[in-house]
């Protein structure tokens, strides 16, 4: 079966797996894991340059933004103003317009602050940004983000970095039914089967950082996630059988002795 292309803001991407670049032991480990994952979009954060150590390695020296799409995020932002400031700076570094908005409201659970997130989506869209929005799994809020101009809806599976997997499949399915925008599970994936479930629910993609970066073997996990996303997508497209409470023999009774 031929799948439709994975398209965000009119740009086609090969892989439905997006990976984060945080929490790795080194940039070389990060670069190798990304390569193994097959991802062609990576999230990155904006921070101060260390002016006292000028020779310190930089992410851009290891992951070439000409070969892989950088998706600047707003990690650590708690207000619309913080987020807009951060993404304007990201745009100035090299012209990035496709961005990941993440406005948090709760330092402990890292849940998104949806009022500020919605306001930021409106403001950034007016400025010409293409905004992929990290959000909670609330179908009503997802609709409002879509109306505000979001180019992708990215609900959490569970709190960022928790590895708990998809906690509310029903809401994800409802959001899937109501939107034609790319739907990407962002945050909370713990293992490959979580990524497969996300894809089987009809999501267009999955964004994973911690589950790969902090795995005992990040390279093997990167490959597992790549396969899990492909597998889940194929499973979704293939049309699963209806679940049945009772058994149904695979072997015919015809010709039984």
């Amino acid at each position, binding site marked *: 079966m031929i799948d439709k292309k994975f398209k965000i803001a009119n740009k086609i991407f090969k892989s439905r797996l997006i990976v984060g670049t945080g929490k790795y032991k080194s*940039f070389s480990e990060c670069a190798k894991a990304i390569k193994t994952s097959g991802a062609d979009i990576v999230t990155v954060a904006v921070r*101060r340059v260390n002016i006292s150590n000028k020779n310190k390695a930089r992410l851009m020296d290891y992951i070439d933004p000409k070969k892989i799409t950088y998706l600047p995020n707003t990690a650590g932002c708690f207000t619309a103003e913080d987020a807009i400031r951060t993404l304007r700076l990201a745009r*100035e*570094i090299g012209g990035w317009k496709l961005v990941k908005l993440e406005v948090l409201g709760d330092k402990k659970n890292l849940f998104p602050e949806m009022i500020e997130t919605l306001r930021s989506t409106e403001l950034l869209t007016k400025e010409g940004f293409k905004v992929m929005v990290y959000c909670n799994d609330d179908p009503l809020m997802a609709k409002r983000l879509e109306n505000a101009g979001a180019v992708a809806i990215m609900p959490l599976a569970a709190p960022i970095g928790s590895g708990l997997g998809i906690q509310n499949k029903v809401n994800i399915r409802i959001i899937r039914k109501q939107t034609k925008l790319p739907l990407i599970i962002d945050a909370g994936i713990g293992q490959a089967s979580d990524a497969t479930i996300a894809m089987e629910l009809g999501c267009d993609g999955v*964004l994973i950082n911690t589950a790969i970066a902090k795995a005992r073997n990040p390279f093997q996990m990167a490959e597992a996630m790549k396969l899990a996303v492909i597998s889940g997508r194929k499973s979704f497209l293939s049309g699963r059988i209806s679940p049945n409470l009772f058994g149904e023999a695979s072997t015919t009774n015809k010709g039984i002795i």
Partner: protein
Amino acid sequence: MNIKNKIKITVNGKQMQITPKFSLKSLINKLKMPINKIAIELNKKIIDKRKISKIQLKKGDKIEIVHFIGGG
């Protein structure tokens, strides 16, 4: 250089002293920052990197220089 002639500025939260008529470009060069991998804010205003040679730094200026790091 007479210390009185020096100007105090803040770069990424750290105090620095520069000589008068020091341009933003000279600061970036002095810090050996790769211009194509950074963004610059001067007193909370984003600076067009093509214009940094024309900007002269003043006493009390607050400069932020940022780049990309790993993130999720």
